[in-house]
């Protein structure tokens, strides 16, 4: 029999529905429903008319307006990292600004712990920005005329905290992000990576419930980018904030995200866990995207196992189905027995070397080899 991946187990597919089902019921930290943003004349009048069905280009020709975000809905669990991935022009930066109303959405709801941010008064919105969420920017947005410590304390100053208190808090955060001893320097004396650490500290200083990251590492060198990604993972483990992270880098999305949403032309084409995006792309666009991702780094044994056949030797090594393929490779290399895949102690499938090799070689699950 040729190497063939079985269809994903029912509890892993189709990604978007599972996700919505898992977090539905008002417990999500952020819930976005039917969000639209159209730039241009008569933005409010387009939604709900046949015009809204037109493609971006057609709409621009017809009305002169530009759809940046098109009917986007998703839920973010408390404490998770939710990544929105898309190429430039996909609307992801507009989307994240609509969530905090730095850009006013044209239509739709954004619920933060059940409160509709869209209906908040300007004063309430400021209050939310001062206490509940904060943002990290691609180009840092630091104040060049202030020392690092006063940049970190800026959010606290904005909400009127006394100088002593905010300085102490800022110093704490500087050491949290690894910038001890840099407090009295000016931003342009720091490297790009260090500047973004300042941006990170500033966002953390207000102790927000939700943090927004707008392509925070795109302007950095690859090595520093990797450092900063690890930094975010470390901080996430330490402070456990809900994070919404925008990126155009698929590897970054898969590395950081508990869930990943792929955007294209303003709309979300797929939401899922990283292995769902890689293992079961919703369409050709996503499939095209993920085709170069090393599958063995993302997919679990559950994605490549075959059904148990009578006569399979059962004395081989045993792994849970959620094991990343890569971690099973060296064990598989040392035995000629097929690997047993278990789920809650129950045998659910077998993995032969041929499946592992196929995954390493980059065959896509579900496609016949």
């Amino acid at each position: 029999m040729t190497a063939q991946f079985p269809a994903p187990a029912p509890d892993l597919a189709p990604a978007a529905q599972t996700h919505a089902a898992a977090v539905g019921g008002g417990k999500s930290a952020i819930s976005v429903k039917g969000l639209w943003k159209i730039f241009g004349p008569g933005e409010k009048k387009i939604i709900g008319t046949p015009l809204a069905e037109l493609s971006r280009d057609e709409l621009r020709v017809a009305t002169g307006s530009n759809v940046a975000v098109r009917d986007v809905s998703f839920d973010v669990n408390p404490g998770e990292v939710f990544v929105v991935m898309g190429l430039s022009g996909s609307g992801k930066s507009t989307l994240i600004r609509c969530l905090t109303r730095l850009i006013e959405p044209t239509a739709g709801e954004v619920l933060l712990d059940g409160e509709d941010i869209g209906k908040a008064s300007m004063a309430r919105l400021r209050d939310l920005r001062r206490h509940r969420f904060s943002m990290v920017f691609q180009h840092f947005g630091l104040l060049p005329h202030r020392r690092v410590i006063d940049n970190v304390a800026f959010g606290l100053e904005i909400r009127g905290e006394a100088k002593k208190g905010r300085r102490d808090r800022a110093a704490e955060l500087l050491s949290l992000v690894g910038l001890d001893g840099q407090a009295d320097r000016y931003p342009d004396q720091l490297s790009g990576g260090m500047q973004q650490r300042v941006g990170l500290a500033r966002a953390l200083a207000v102790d927000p419930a939700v943090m927004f990251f707008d392509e925070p590492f795109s302007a950095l060198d690859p090595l520093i980018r990797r450092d900063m990604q690890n930094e975010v993972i470390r901080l996430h483990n330490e402070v456990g904030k809900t994070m919404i992270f925008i990126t155009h880098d698929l590897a970054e999305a898969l590395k950081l995200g508990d869930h990943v949403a792929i955007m294209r032309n303003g709309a979300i084409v797929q939401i899922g866990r990283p292995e769902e995006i890689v293992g079961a792309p919703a369409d050709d666009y996503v499939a095209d995207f993920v085709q170069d991702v090393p599958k063995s780094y993302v997919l679990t044994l559950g994605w490549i196992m075959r059904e148990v056949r009578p006569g399979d030797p059962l004395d081989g090594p045993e792994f849970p189905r959620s094991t990343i393929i890569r971690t099973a490779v060296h064990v598989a290399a040392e035995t000629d027995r097929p690997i047993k895949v278990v789920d809650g102690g129950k045998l659910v499938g077998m993995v032969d070397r041929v499946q592992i090799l196929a995954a390493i070689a980059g065959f896509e699950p579900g496609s016949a080899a």
Partner: protein
Amino acid sequence: MTAIGATAGATGIRVTRRTLAGVLALAAVVIFALLHGQWTLPHNDDYDLFRTLNGVRDWVDQNRTLLEPIRLAIAGLVSLFDDILASLGWPGVIAAAAATGVAFGSVRLGLLAGFGFGSLGALGLWDPSMATLAMVLAAVLLALLIGIPLGVLAGRSARVQAVLSPVLDFMQIMPAMAYLTPITLLFLIGVAPASVATLIFAIPAAIRITALGIREVSTTTVEAARSLGATDNQVLRKVLLPLSRRALGLAVNQTIMLALSMVVITSLIGAPGLGRNLQRELSKVNVGGAFDAGIAIVILAIMLDRLTAAVAEWLDPRERAARTRPGGRLVTVALPVAIIVVGLAAPALVDATKFPDTLLFSFRDPVNAAVGWFTGTFQPATLAFKDAATIIVLNPLETVLVQAPVWLVGAALMTVAWFTSGRRAAVVVGACAALIVGLGLWEHSMQTMANVVLGTLLTLAIGLVIGILSARNDRFRAFLRPFLDMAQTLPAFVYLIPALALFNPTRFTAIVAAVIYALPPVIRLVDVGIRSVPPAVVEASTASGATEAQLLWKVQLPMSRQALLLAANQGIVMVLSMVVIGALVGAGALGYDVITGFAQGKDFGKGLAAGLAIVLLGILLDRITQGAGGTRREGAANAG
């Protein structure tokens, strides 16, 4: 195939355009040959409109109740500054200048400021210098009080910007001479109208630079502040204003420099100060005496420039932090305090109201001697050059413009504008020409225009050569830089002095002064234009075997076309504003009409009309040279 077709098509259009231009030019020549001397408008001093305008003045004179409080308030402000400077006395003022230099700059700057202000007294010009300074301070205070808030508004709102921009454009192309007369109509003569004129002249820079500074603040930074919940007010106070501090400092600096250069011109409407000394000596053709007043103006300009620039730089905390100064607080705080204390204590020992005679020094005799030697030696050459330019270019040009039928000149100007700047510009040019006819100043306007055309051609020819050299040679550019910097801090008025020394009082003298005045920005623009050609293009041309000359003619000059157009535009506007001031050294026409308007009550109406004609001429020349560039003025603000 399509590419070849398109090229052929483009050439075809260019040929027809060129042919059309040739045919029209030929037609103009033929019409001129047939009809010159007819449909002309010779000058008439008793034109009805002039008398009507005299009537307007008489009416305003009898209804001053509304204007009088404004005039008195402004005059009061100036005399307040007068009193402050007088109460400090000369030791106090010198000490204040030196202390400012030490505190915000360096000990060197402090010494420079002390000596600079001291030399104003040593030249025997302490009192007029202080009168000038008081007017500058008053006008700058008013300009900043109005200009900075407007600039902040314009920087934050595109709509305010859109409304203000054309108004500021207009204020900046308007030659200073043009609005002196209307201002005397409203505020009589003396320090009050002088301050208002200075305010009008200096405020566009304050507004523009402030707005630019506000707009240059990174949008991410503003967004970051907003995302942290900052109110509009907090964004303004904590982000926009602090981040545009450098721009604000520059705005203050530029406003002061422009104010100084205008204040000395306002001696024409009775303002006291250095300008009055300069004007008096110029009218006596006493180059040495004018030189003393001129050098005092230059010193005052340099001192104010350096001191405000130092303060502006000090405002940037990064700059302050990066600076390590020997002596620390002892030098930055204690020394300035000590200097001021000494300055204020000095009246106990010396007479602070009058600068000591023993220190007096004058350049008058040595300069007059030098000028005497120079003119004695070179005057044959300079006069020959002057005569050649006058006979070969200026006279024929003037004759053609004055003798040709009015409608022919108007049609020719409109056609040129249509070729260079499009249909709308042609309409504006036509309207301006018609209004000049209506003002009854056609002949004088054409004479002024002839001067401007010659001045601009000279400016562009010299500016292009120097600019190209500067763009192609870094060492030459470095050599040139201090001269250009210096030239841009000098008030326009002083350029009359060397021109007068070289050419005696004639029309041509004013043209030379205008050329000197307009050259520095033209050189800068040419240099910047050529240097901003992308290096990749230059490299590609060199790689395909272009010679230096080919590179210049086929790549660098065509690609810097926009900058060259801008240089022509700037040049023509600056030449006009100087040519009319040149009436003081022998240029007649519109500038002279304005000056006689101040001097003689019965000529007031003509002076007022001449001011308007200068504005119209300015708009007309600006439109003709505007080209297609929409962002030209912003570019000029940056380059200058």
